[in-house]
């Protein structure tokens, strides 16, 4: 068992990788009442073509399969619904699928040992039948319908699709109506056997726990199970072009005010003087300074009543690109898109703004250290984004320099962008 410390936050992280490859991270937070436990596989919607374990050829699986698999893991051979089990112990259980990972989780202050054992057991004992796979299609199609009615979600997925050419971030996480109905029991098993091997998964536990005990319970649980030997997983690589695939798209929906997304595909492949942590954070700072709540841009646009609300911002990272989406509600989408592009292209940054944003980052790091969910999420997202936990945020943030930000931004191109507009139907 290793012990490391989140610098300046008064939190320790205990970790161990078991013989079968499963990684465990535990953060005891003893002044909290609750416990939050997650198990994740590094398999999300961004994987749709790979060599299945034990085979030699690439296989393309239907879109939405990672999400479908998440739904179906709740099906158990003995017919007991995992939700019933957790509910008996007073715990809240759930699961979610993103582009990058799938996570199964529970939170509950009582009966931790039973709960964590059950979490591991139901995730590690799939039971897919033709019948139970078929039954799920109507449910997932209703979930898809719900997202279709959300203009921001439509704009988000639509913009990502238009930014890339081949990369699977092009496809909705939940799949399309057609792909959902195409999915078979066999698809699920192929994905499960390839990506749910313990060596591709990790457990994170935060809250009122004893770390030695947690690791011991998980070890005992895993020792009782047999897994095939760890194998390298081969996932299709995409030679994603620098160019966006679609420059502009407009759709109609039953809404009152037009919606706009301006999205960027930023090539970060030639930035050898910077770590990925720096690149990612400097770019975020830049967009926050330019389009955030303290920007002159937002102030002017509100005065002119071009926008009423602050912008929304989303970030994704695929291969050598950072993808940024800026979301707005406006009656003048064309004009606004030009104004945003101009502002992002001028690259002038106020140093005072930058120093203040650093202060905000440090403050939010401290605030997050009070919350079992935030710390757990931070560990999960660090592992996915950086490959390991970042223990020294505090120093890293303090060490960010204005001159480096300035130089980095000046070396980037913001010319690859795409516009997505939703117009009110019939207006």
């Amino acid at each position, binding site marked *: 068992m290793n012990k490391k410390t989140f610098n300046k936050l008064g939190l320790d992280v205990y970790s161990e990788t078991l013989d079968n490859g499963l990684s465990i991270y535990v953060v005891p937070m003893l002044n909290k009442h609750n416990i939050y436990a997650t198990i994740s596989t590094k398999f999300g919607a961004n994987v749709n073509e790979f060599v299945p374990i034990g085979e030699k050829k690439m296989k393309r699986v239907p879109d939405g399969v990672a999400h479908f698999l998440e739904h179906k893991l709740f099906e158990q051979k003995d017919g007991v619904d995992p939700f019933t089990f957790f509910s008996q112990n*007073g715990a809240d259980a759930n699961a979610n699928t993103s582009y990058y990972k799938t996570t199964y989780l529970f939170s509950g202050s009582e009966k931790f040992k039973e709960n964590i054992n059950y979490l591991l057991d139901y995730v590690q004992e799939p039971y897919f039948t033709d019948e139970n796979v078929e039954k799920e299609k*109507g449910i997932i199609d209703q979930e898809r319908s719900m997202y279709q009615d959300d203009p921001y979600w439509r704009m988000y997925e639509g913009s990502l699709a238009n930014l890339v050419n081949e990369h699977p971030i092009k496809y909705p996480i939940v799949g399309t*109506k057609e792909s959902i109905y195409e999915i078979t029991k066999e698809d699920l098993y192929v994905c499960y056997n390839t990506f749910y091997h313990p060596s591709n998964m990790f457990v994170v536990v935060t809250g009122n726990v004893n770390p030695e005990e947690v690791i011991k319970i998980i070890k005992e649980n895993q020792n009782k199970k047999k897994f095939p030997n760890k194998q390298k997983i081969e996932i299709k690589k995409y030679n994603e072009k620098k160019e966006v695939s679609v420059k502009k798209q407009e759709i109609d929906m039953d809404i009152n005010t037009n919606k706009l997304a301006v999205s960027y595909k930023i090539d970060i492949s030639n930035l050898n003087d910077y770590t990925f942590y720096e690149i990612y954070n400097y770019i975020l700072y830049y967009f926050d300074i330019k389009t955030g709540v303290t920007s*002159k841009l937002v102030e002017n646009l509100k005065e002119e009543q071009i926008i009423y609300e602050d912008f929304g911002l989303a970030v994704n990272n695929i291969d050598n690109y950072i993808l940024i989406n800026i979301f707005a509600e406006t009656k003048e989408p064309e004009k606004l898109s030009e104004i945003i592009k101009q502002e992002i292209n001028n690259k002038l940054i106020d140093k005072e703004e930058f120093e203040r944003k650093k202060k905000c980052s440090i403050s939010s790091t401290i605030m997050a250290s009070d919350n079992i969910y935030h710390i757990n999420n931070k560990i999960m997202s660090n592992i996915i984004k950086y490959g390991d936990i970042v223990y020294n945020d505090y120093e890293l943030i303090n060490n960010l320099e204005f001159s480096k930000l300035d130089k980095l931004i000046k070396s980037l191109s913001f010319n690859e962008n795409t516009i997505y507009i939703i117009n009110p139907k019939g207006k």
Partner: protein
Amino acid sequence: MNYTNYNMGPYNLHIIKNDDFKAINIKVNFKSKLDKNDITARNLLRLYLVNNTKLYPTERLMNVASEELYDLGYGSQGLVSGNFSIISFYVNFLNNKYTEEDNLEKSIDFLCEILFNPNVERKKFENKNFNIVKESLKNTIESKKENPRQYALDRLLEEMDKKSNYAINPNGYLADLDKLTEKDLYKTYEKMLTKDIVDIFVIGDVSANEIKELISKKFLINTIKKPVCTHFIDHDKFRSRVKTVKEEQDISQSKLYIGCKVDKLDLFQKQYVANIYSFILGGGPDSKLFQSVREKNSLCYYVSSSFKPICNLLIITSGIDKKDYKKAVGLIKKEIKSMMNGDFSQEDIDKAVATYINSCEAIYDSEVSILNNYVTAEYLGFDLMEERIKKIKTVTKDMIVEFAKKIHIDTIYLLQGGDQNEQEDLQ
């Protein structure tokens, strides 16, 4: 944790000392008897007050100032709560231990700046910001259909009883908004300060004496008022035939909302029996509704019930395909009936109790949740966490069946999609 309540004459000061958190939260509530005619003005007022002040004459400058205070979070809320309108102003910020010595005092000053130093000249709010905030609210009200779930709930409540207090929309109404002037808003402001009942809640690792001293020095409120009516709404009229309303909107998932009125209840029934009832009926993935409508019949992605103790209403919500309307309504009615017949087990009750206790335990991990628990204790006479954990265990099956018999289905509302033609998502 240590709670102290000071009656300061013009306002009540509630201080919850809690060493487990690195942040401090303060919430100031202004409570007045609900009046449909001034709800729009009150909502505009709370939006205006957190938009700008004399010292920070634009929204951007407000945001800059809050970021300087280690990213202090601030905002306002407008609630329709039974027979009252409550507007709240809140700040949350880091404890002095993590900042400079005077962050506490400066943060309270920031809150006081919002409340007591608005951008007013000659008894009129400043015109430019007034128009910005007014237009923004106008857009919010006009866009209400963009969130079909919220819209369906608002419409259901309206259809149940247009004249009731629970049907009043906290956002306000366009006709009233159009008429509002800078002068009217100032009158609303004066009225709020002099006529509303004021409660201040503070939670964090603080010294009660220090807080009391700071607040009494800085809070410029000096008129004493008494509550004028009860918080709770009771029903005296029940429909002999269920009302059905269908409305069309161009969405892909139809929203099925069912509103039920409940006979007069005592505090124990409101807090405990109703909770267990609603959990068994439609509280989570393990509930009767979820199992029947989603798992057995694949008609929806979500279906749930929730009890509103202040208005004595039980609301059931689901998203379905409109062709399944009749079937879904039939299944939901069947489950409501099965509850009346006592068709549930002690095990179901135990699960609900365990989940309830866990959610009480989880309150201890969140400053905002603890604070809100004290708010409901103050306004509604509800029990605090410890008491709740004890009392929930005394709920019996007979009590739940007795409660189930008090439920009257009142209105079934369907927001139905137009044609099911979706081209855009076929990427």
